[in-house]
């Protein structure tokens, strides 16, 4: 359940942000969780709800973007979409590809008031 740690890190970032630009509460936290990252969005939502209690983010909703996995295939030189790490390159069926997108774990923005 490393999603719990990640949820805590999200709240830490929100707290830091509030230090610079004060706000009363957070309505929505938009995060980007790439499809090739090793994070389960439902576990993250659950963990977030738990660790947000008693913090400025209590009651905030998590809006989770899921950018797709993208890979560069070193065998056929194609840039392709990949759903999981176990997928073969859809153009040449090889496995020698490197991820070029979909690994991100980022806080994008906050909706606050």
């Amino acid at each position, binding site marked *: 359940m*490393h999603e719990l*740690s990640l949820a805590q*890190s999200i709240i830490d970032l929100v707290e830091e942000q509030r230090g610079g*630009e004060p706000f009363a509460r957070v309505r929505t936290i938009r995060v980007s969780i790439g499809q090739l990252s090793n994070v389960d969005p439902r576990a993250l939502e659950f963990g977030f709800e738990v660790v947000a209690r*008693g913090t400025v983010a209590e009651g905030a909703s998590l809006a989770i973007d899921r950018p797709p996995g993208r890979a560069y295939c070193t065998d056929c030189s194609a840039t392709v979409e990949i759903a999981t790490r*176990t997928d073969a390159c859809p153009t040449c069926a090889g*496995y020698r590809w490197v991820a070029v997108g979909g690994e991100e774990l980022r806080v994008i923005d906050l909706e606050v008031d």
Partner: protein
Amino acid sequence: MCGVCGCGTEAKIVGAHEHPHSHAHAHDGHEHPHAHPHAHDHGHDHAHPPEAQRRIRVERDILEKNDRFAGENRLAFQAARTLALNLVSSPGAGKTSLLVRTLEKAMGRYPLAVIEGDQQTSLDAQRIKATGAPALQINTGKMCHLDATMVADAVAELGPTEDGVLFIENVGNLVCPAGFDLGEAAKVVLVSVTEGEDKPLKYPDMFHAAGLVIVTKIDLLPHLDFDIRALVANVRRINSATEVLRVSARTGEGMDGWFAWLDARRHEVEEAR
């Protein structure tokens, strides 16, 4: 509370000497942002004017803090010419046994030290210390992985392993430790022959992150239907670059390859000076 830890309890370093250091771990510069919920109590819940609602751009990595500590650990390791390795596997794959065997053979050749991560107990650190090597136990409590702040604290306690090898034995878990950089030179993933050939496909993130894969307990092969070539093929499917070694810590078979790998990595650390 540890910065990236959601459990609310601080990871404990179980030192050899039980001086109750209050652990206000001074990582200078960057503060430890506790979730101090200072009651800015707008008891009035009257609707704020709509113009008060606004969007704030953040655009920061969720793992930013861990990665910052990991970067500092990495710089400290480079400065001390320490080869730091992050050993990961499922529970019971033989991380501690491999380490004990390694230390028994390599002690005296170059400085060696071990950071042990477990949820509870200091049993592993005791096994390591019995070899004469310095070891420090981190109890992660409810946490399923080590993070870079825990390792920074442990290194501060343990001291630098100059010109040597620091083994960081992570919590037995093939999922969570994959996402947390500790500042290591490489993740060494162990998989035992009793676990099944499909492990790399079931836990691809970890095998993808591997700088080395070690197949352990190969002395058991005659008693099993384990197809080691199928395992290696599955590793290659996830990670075409990594080396795969076959080792038995019990009989010592394959340990030469492991020591050769360590020597090559140590050489790289020296070259990078």
